[in-house]
């Protein structure tokens, strides 16, 4: 009985922690589907990882611009390239603590040589890297960005 109770407590805790900050896992097919997204939305896909210093440094800029654009048809997704083995002990705690404002997913897409070119043919694979796209065009940038750079890029692409 006692055991069952602990189990329930554990489950409830689990549900709550998951709900606090959900981090979906994207397979290659999910990435492909998402990259095909259309409609009058501007998508911002930022490729990052908890261990990537310049990635962490640009997060405040993204946070600021995202909050300025609240209500607008702009969707920011922060696609983590942290190792699968680091999900529980590194990625999830980092996201809960620092990225409660963000939509974060973890990429589990297999051989990078197969999916990197899907994001952009010019991408060498270094992170940070960010893809902006809308019906007005697409811009891919393989370096850390300032809030001004993010704002201006969005301005040229916003539908």
């Amino acid at each position, binding site marked *: 009985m006692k055991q069952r109770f602990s189990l329930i407590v554990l489950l409830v805790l689990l549900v709550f922690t998951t709900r606090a900050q959900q981090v979906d896992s994207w397979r290659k097919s999910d990435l492909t589907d998402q990259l095909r997204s259309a409609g009058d939305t501007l998508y911002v896909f930022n490729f990052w*990882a908890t261990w990537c210093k310049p990635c962490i440094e640009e997060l405040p800029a993204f946070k600021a611009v995202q909050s300025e654009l609240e209500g607008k048809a702009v969707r920011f997704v922060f696609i983590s390239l942290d190792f699968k083995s680091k999900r529980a002990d590194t990625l999830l705690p980092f996201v809960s603590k620092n990225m409660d404002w963000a939509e974060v997913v973890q990429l589990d897409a297999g051989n990078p040589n197969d999916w990197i070119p899907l994001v952009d043919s010019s991408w060498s694979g*270094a992170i940070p890297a960010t893809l902006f796209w809308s019906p007005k065009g697409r811009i891919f940038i393989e370096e850390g960005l300032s809030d001004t750079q993010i704002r201006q890029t969005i301005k040229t692409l916003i539908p």
Partner: protein
Amino acid sequence: MKKFLTLLLITGISLPVMAQYKVGDKATDFKLKNVDGKMVSLKNYKEAKGFIVVFTCNHCPYSQAYEQRILDLDKKYASQGYPVIAINPNDPKIQPEDSFDKMKERAVTYKYTFPYLVDETQHITRTYGATRTPHVFVLEKQGTGLVVKYIGAIDDNTEDPKGVASPYVERAVNALLKKEVITIETTKAIGCTIKWRKA
């Protein structure tokens, strides 16, 4: 092209003049300082048939994940004429973990069997066109020169060495040793950006 220029304007990226190597290009030799303080040039390797040049560093988790595999490559191929030459391209002002002193420590701790060179001016890194760590260039000696034969990742699974299906560098070097055609000459991989010196 116009879009590209607009992008440059938008992002304010200043592109350094960079001759990025492609497979088939002639590769330049270099003279870079090793962790033992001596200068290393490829021309000093009289017996070598070629080289496995790896741009790598201390701090990057992707480099660390490949550390044992880089050691294994040297163990397997140095005796067959393709030694590993590791080059740290990063500016230690931006990434203190990649300082020359820390390079020395790392080479000792992990018993590097290959030179671990520092590209202080980042000239060789730019000339080769390395963009991340780790980033591999397999070179073959042809006459008195060197030709780029493979550019890219070590293999297709950074996180799990047991899950590797395509050991790209091994296959490339095996093909060179057997004088066969390299089937996959370039690959892309996730890695840490090179920490360029601020102008």
